[in-house]
């Protein structure tokens, strides 16, 4: 009935992410464990969503699937009307590169490379030429306010600055969604606030943000909070 209409992209033009009956099942010996049981979720363009839940609630798994790092065992995942759940490895890599920007709790910068080179990495995999990469990398670093430190290595930067580099790296391909996993988890509260301020700014610039967190004051920055428990969405509130 309505599912046919729902699958038609024409009727839902602004939906960036659409999850339908998403399940992720792991096998532990003879037992099956559902990290995600049956998740339905839609996220529109320029939404700012916080995904909350206890550890083991399935939020990391959800994050991995949205980030195209993992396949669901059942259900569908549509990203911009593309069916991610049926993509092969190469298509997934391409999607991660073009459509998704990751921000990790531990920054995950490549230690031997400068801030500039770190931000440039996704563009290399996009296949852009040197000139285009230079321009885009500069813009991304400018957006996060780190243009003057771009020749520094991660070890020469503070925690907050490292996370800014990571955010610039996530932004540089102009992705459809920015996916942040506990982005302030390794930062002191003042620096965390600074980073959240940056997220607010990015949201106001029109980006779609998904932040996974277990801290309420972080989630308070978002317009929408999705709460997970035992692999199901138990709460979905908009401000």
């Amino acid at each position, binding site marked *: 009935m309505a599912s046919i209409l729902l699958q038609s992209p024409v009727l839902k033009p602004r939906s960036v992410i659409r999850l339908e009956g998403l399940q992720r099942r792991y096998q532990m010996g003879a037992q099956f464990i559902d990290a995600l049981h049956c998740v339905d979720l839609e996220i529109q363009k320029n939404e700012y969503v916080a995904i909350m839940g206890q550890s083991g609630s399935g939020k990391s798994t959800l994050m991995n699937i949205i980030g195209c790092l993992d396949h669901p065992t059942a259900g569908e995942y549509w990203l911009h009307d593309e069916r991610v759940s049926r993509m092969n490895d*190469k298509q997934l890599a391409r999607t991660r590169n073009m459509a998704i920007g*990751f921000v990790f709790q531990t920054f995950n910068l*490549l230690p031997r*490379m400068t801030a500039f080179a770190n931000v440039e990495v996704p563009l290399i995999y996009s*296949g852009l030429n040197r000139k285009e990469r230079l321009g885009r990398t500069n813009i991304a670093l400018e957006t996060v306010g780190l243009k003057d430190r771009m020749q520094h290595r991660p070890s020469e930067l503070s925690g907050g600055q490292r996370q800014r580099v990571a955010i610039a790296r996530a932004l540089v391909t102009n992705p459809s969604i920015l996916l942040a996993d506990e982005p302030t988890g390794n930062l002191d509260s003042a620096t965390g606030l600074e980073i959240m301020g940056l997220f607010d700014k990015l949201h106001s610039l029109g980006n779609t943000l998904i932040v996974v967190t277990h801290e309420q004051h972080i989630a308070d920055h978002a317009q929408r909070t999705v709460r997970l428990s035992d692999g199901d969405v138990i709460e979905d509130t908009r401000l």
Partner: protein
Amino acid sequence: MLIVETIRMSLNSIQANLFRALLTMLGIIIGVAAVITMVALGTGAQRAIDAQMAALGDDILSIQSSSRFSRGVTHDSQTLTTDDAKALAIEPVHLSDVVPEIGGRLQVKYGNKNFNLSVVGTTPNYPLVHGFKLAHGEFLSAAEEASRTRAVVLGSEIPEMMEVDAAALIGQTLQIRSISFEIIGIYESKGGSGWRNPDDDLYIPLSTSQFRVTGNEFVGTISARVSDSSTIPLAMLEIERVLRREHGILPGKDNDFSIMNRKQFAESRAEATQVFKYLLAGIAGVSLVVGGIGIMNIMLVTVTERTREIGVRKALGATRGNILLQFLVESTILCLLGGLLGLALGASVSALLAKYAGWQTVVTSSSAMIAFGFSAAVGMVFGIWPAKRAAALDPIEALRYD
């Protein structure tokens, strides 16, 4: 374009661990250096044989006394005499020159300096047959041979050995076994022939040697030049016929002399050198493979060490192919750099061997190319497994890895 970035990336990561990279490359460096040096030695030896053949001429047969076997006993004796040489020289059919010679190491004294040198007694046609040229003075003459004159012509390195200017030696005297000889000439350098260097020898008339120095009529070697190199087998038959007659050897009995065909000898030596060369190259090749295993080992460690980096790169959009290429390029670059350093090392070792050990070595471009190509192949072959492991890593697991 991606390959350029990949190469840059690999160079960066090699640079970041430069010392380890050097140690990793060591196997390849030694392997390639070994290949280059071994092949250079082999090629050098072959060139030396070729040069020697060209200098001596392949149309000279050497006749030497051989051990005789009679009544169940081997007799190791001198059987060749000046009469044999004379007999061979009488109306020869296939021979053009016959040169008897007798040699031995004797005490040579010049002024207050003592030497132990090889003194060759021979006939005046010796320089002609063996291709000697004069640098100073004159050759031994037939008159000197006939009158058993105490005259000596020196090999080109003797003046240097005696620390005297070559030209100034002409007309001086030196003592061979306390017998005074006048120096009448000095040869031009002929070049070493591997086992014997004719430039280190002294040359005196055969008759003088037999009657004044050694005191008997035997000669060590008779060299005979074949008039036409296509008739070597006929020339050998001729020598055999004459000498058997001279020595009174009955039909069915063994020869008490042996005839050495220099061409044949040189060919068999060249063949042996070739086998030796392949053997050395084989051993060196094995060391390259061992070097490759070293590369593989370190690349596996590197992949484990950089698991997190691989996870991050995958999250940022690297495909399996990108990761595979990155590690493959890295191991290939390691091997190529190792190959380059090995090439330099091998070339220097070859040059040092040539300079200080006096061995002729030739580094050919083909051996350099082969060693270099082989090291690149080693890098790729032994890099595949680690690179595949890196490419196959699950991004989620890799991101979680500490």
